[in-house]
């Protein structure tokens, strides 16, 4: 006779759906958001500091408690169960709704801030912007702007979801420290410090926001503002220049662009925290990589031309002029020569076939000749700096980095902007690829080609393609978030810095046991 067996153990102590505490936490956070909605739609009775701080506290507490229940009730480890089943994280209905809401918010924020209650020149704020007045008064002694409101919400998002991310990856010290870093830099350097400086009658300046991400650094009004602000202004100006030309190249040489993109940067900060549930949505195809390279380097060229023009016009008060024939041609020749030089010098390391190399050189030479001809025939080849500047502000500064950059999180992943549009990422990326000690090493032959690394790469790098042939990953776009190494079930990937093999860090085929000198990867 067989006895009927009933297991005493539960299947999985964490309930499949949200538990009651999580529901309450979600409700609390929802109430916080509701206050903001009430403020937005003109409920005057909640326009005071108590309601504001309560709302912010509710949102942060709600998120923290919700995540606490989500992760602390389970053993520590990788938490990707059901990622591709949930509507929100798999481009389902909720993802589209969130995408539309976020995109809409950014459109209003950038182009119709009056609907958020921005008072304008002499009018007082109303609505949502006014809701943030108490905090703004406390920090800088002035009423809030739409950017202050946005900055506060942005910081709250990084802090709340940063806590969630830390709980989720609490077993991984690299992730924990990195996340504390982005939370610190956002709260301290991007949010509080610039606001407090204003209260101290100093110019608005964020130490961690450098050119070319901070594309208006060289604008006349910014330069004038800094130069008019005495010693502190001068210090800010010099620090900004040092960031671009000394500090950033040095740090990138030693640690790769991750020191900025996934440790300091605010855009990266939001992507790593609030954007984490969407990281796997980045497109990993070769096609996407090709588009990425054209777009991001295009933006870098755009911002460089624009800045050169702006600086030129700053020093030659004749504001409209710019980039005359000799300058344009000179610039292009210089740029072309530099690119050819770099490529030529590193041909072996970056594995370019002669074919490809000659194609690149051909394209560059063709562009130079074409532009020279245009310049010759138009006689007065002029690019208007003012025009460049306003188009850059509209297309890249607002539409790309804001509306698309965050609005499309739920559909294209959390790093759309960083991957396709950020000129800072492009610049640091070039350096990371050609002149940095950073790489991701592959652990011999341990790769099982499972694809977790590629799937969870927010930058859309096909990490597996390298790992499975035992090759280090040296990619311009890699922000060094370390998630590929974290999700790898076999301990194959490691972020490392080293100087001994700077010129051969992409050597391939370490995984293979059969020695053959001339084996090449297809």
């Amino acid at each position: 006779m067989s006895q009927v067996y009933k297991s005493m153990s539960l299947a999985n102590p964490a309930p499949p759906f949200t538990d009651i505490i999580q529901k309450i936490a979600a409700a609390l956070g929802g109430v916080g958001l509701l206050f903001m909605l009430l403020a937005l739609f003109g409920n005057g009775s909640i326009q005071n500091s108590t309601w504001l701080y309560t709302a912010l506290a509710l949102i942060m507490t709600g998120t923290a408690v919700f995540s606490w229940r989500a992760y602390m009730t389970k053993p520590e480890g990788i938490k990707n169960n059901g990622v591709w089943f949930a509507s929100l994280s798999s481009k389902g209905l909720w993802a589209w709704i969130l995408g539309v809401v976020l995109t809409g918010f950014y459109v209003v924020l950038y182009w119709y801030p009056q609907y958020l209650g921005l008072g304008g020149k002499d009018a007082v704020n109303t609505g949502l912007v006014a809701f943030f007045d108490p905090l703004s008064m406390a920090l800088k002694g002035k009423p809030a702007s739409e950017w202050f409101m946005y900055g506060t919400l942005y910081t709250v998002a990084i802090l709340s979801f940063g806590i969630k991310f830390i709980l989720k990856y609490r077993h991984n010290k690299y992730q924990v420290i990195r996340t504390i870093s982005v939370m610190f830099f956002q709260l301290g350097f991007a949010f509080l410090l610039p606001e407090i400086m204003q209260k101290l009658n100093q110019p608005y300046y964020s130490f961690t926001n450098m050119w070319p991400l901070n594309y208006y650094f060289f604008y006349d009004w910014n330069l004038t503002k800094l130069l008019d602000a005495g010693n502190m202004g001068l210090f800010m100006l010099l620090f900004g220049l040092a960031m671009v030309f000394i500090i950033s190249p040095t740090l990138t040489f030693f640690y790769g662009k991750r020191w900025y993109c996934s440790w300091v940067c605010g855009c990266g900060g939001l992507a790593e925290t609030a954007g984490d549930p969407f990281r796997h949505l980045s497109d990993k195809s070769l096609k996407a990589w090709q588009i990425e390279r054209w777009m991001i380097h295009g933006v870098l060229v755009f911002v460089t031309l624009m800045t050169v023009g702006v600086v030129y016009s700053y020093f030659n008060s004749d504001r409209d002029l710019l980039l005359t024939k000799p300058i344009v041609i000179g610039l292009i020749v210089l740029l072309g020569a530099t690119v050819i030089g770099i490529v030529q010098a590193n041909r072996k390391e970056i594995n370019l076939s002669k074919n490809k190399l000659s194609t690149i050189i051909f394209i560059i030479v063709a562009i130079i000749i074409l532009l020279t001809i245009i310049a010759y025939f138009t006689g007065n080849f002029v690019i208007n700096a003012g025009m460049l500047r306003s188009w850059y502000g509209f297309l890249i500064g607002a539409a790309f980095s804001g509306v698309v950059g965050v609005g499309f999180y739920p559909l294209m992943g959390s790093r759309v902007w960083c991957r396709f549009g950020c000129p800072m990422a492009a610049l640091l990326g070039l350096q990371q690829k050609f002149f940095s000690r950073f790489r991701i090493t592959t652990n011999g032959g341990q790769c099982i080609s499972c694809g977790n690394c590629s799937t969870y790469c927010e930058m859309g790098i096909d990490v597996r393609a390298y790992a499975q042939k035992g090759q280090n990953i040296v990619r311009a776009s890699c922000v060094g978030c370390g998630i590929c190494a974290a999700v790898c079930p076999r301990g194959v990937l490691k972020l490392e810095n080293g100087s001994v093999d700077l010129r051969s860090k992409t050597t391939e085929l370490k995984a293979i046991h059969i020695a053959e000198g001339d084996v090449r990867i297809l």
Partner: protein
Amino acid sequence: MLRSSGFFLKNVLLKKEKNMHIAIIGNGISGITAARFIRKLSDHEITVISAETDYFFSRTALMYIYMGHMRFEDTKPYEDWFWEKNRIDLKRGYVERINTTEKKLVFKQGETLAYDKLILATGSVPNKFGWPGQDLKRVHGLYSYQDLEAMEKYSDGLQRAVIVGGGLIGLEMAEMFHSRHIPVTILVREKSYWNSVMPTEESAMINREIMRHHIDLQLEEELDEIVDDGNGAACAVITKSGKRIDCGFVGLTAGVSPNIKFLSKTDIETKRGILVNEHLETSIPDIYAIGDCSEQRTPKEGRRGVEAIWYTGRMMGETVAYNICEKPVAYDPGIWFNSAKFLDIEYQVYGDVRADQPEAHRSIYWEDTEGRKSVRIIYDEDRGYVVGFNLMGVRFRHEVCEKWIKEKTKIEDVMKNLELANFDPEFYKKYESDVVAIYNKQSGKNLSVKPQRSWNKVFAFLRS
């Protein structure tokens, strides 16, 4: 274009090498690696045949599809355009018969395909030991894409799954159901999980990890029979001790065997698997066998004839390509290595690590206070050199371990330089000095660890 025409000039016109048609049965890691390397080395025509899927996918990632970590397309290591671009023909079909005299494959639908050389890379099938009810519906192994589909199909409304067998795949299957909040019972014949392979402490750690996840682990319990619900599907299992466990799915994960049944009508010599020599040639000329389905006639010392793991499959795929492309090379799997993940604990092994150590082997075993990480370093006490590494929850560097083992490095040198092997992410807690303290204690020596985690040091060591 230019490159391939250059190739044409060099290899076809000048060398007058004749292009052969190479057929590969099986699009797993072995078959696909063979195809890729043949393409690298030659201009032969290549056809890869599979009854399972249109494109190569990573079999080891099946579990992640079920758990929602990845979609099926994410498990494909190469994009779909890759095959045409590299002139590797993919054919979906089931080869029913091989006509070795006419060098022809006969498909289930009756069509035929001629080959000049044939590579058999047909993989494994889950073991079935003649249990009553083993062929019922709702009874599956976890090997193929079809197994995954079956698990998916029967998961709907599933109240409990029972998994038979205490190996790697059994635990993967348990983790899969667990991720969907389906209660799982694992029946393990042994006293402790996977203790036929793992030393006692590591095996105990896995037991604890399974229970920490609240999976019902039944040790020293064997399957006796699977109960038919009257409609040809499983509804319960009865164990050897007489327990009846109601369940809507039975996972058979008591190991795998070479998938060679379809060869029974040919004269290709088989034992457990398809017998091959060191050049991976079978008993019939121009037919090779690689991966899970093959069996070495004379395995290397300390190795088994059939080794059904990803890594050996990949190495055999590469080796066979060289042999077919007239660059004869013997199959040499090198120093043994493997890896797995037991729920949240990663596992890596390098070299000679056995559940029952030979007398001369001595262990240095360190475990962290929470009992979820461990390092075991095994050395030959008589000769004083290192032979193996067994890691739980800790990552070690493959090349460094391999070099130490290959060069029969003295255990003292390994201890002093232990940080070279560390592959944990940055900022992780160091444990090397704890490991060395244990060695010092058991040997009476007084060694200390050199701080050298940096890549520069590792690189210098690997090049030395």
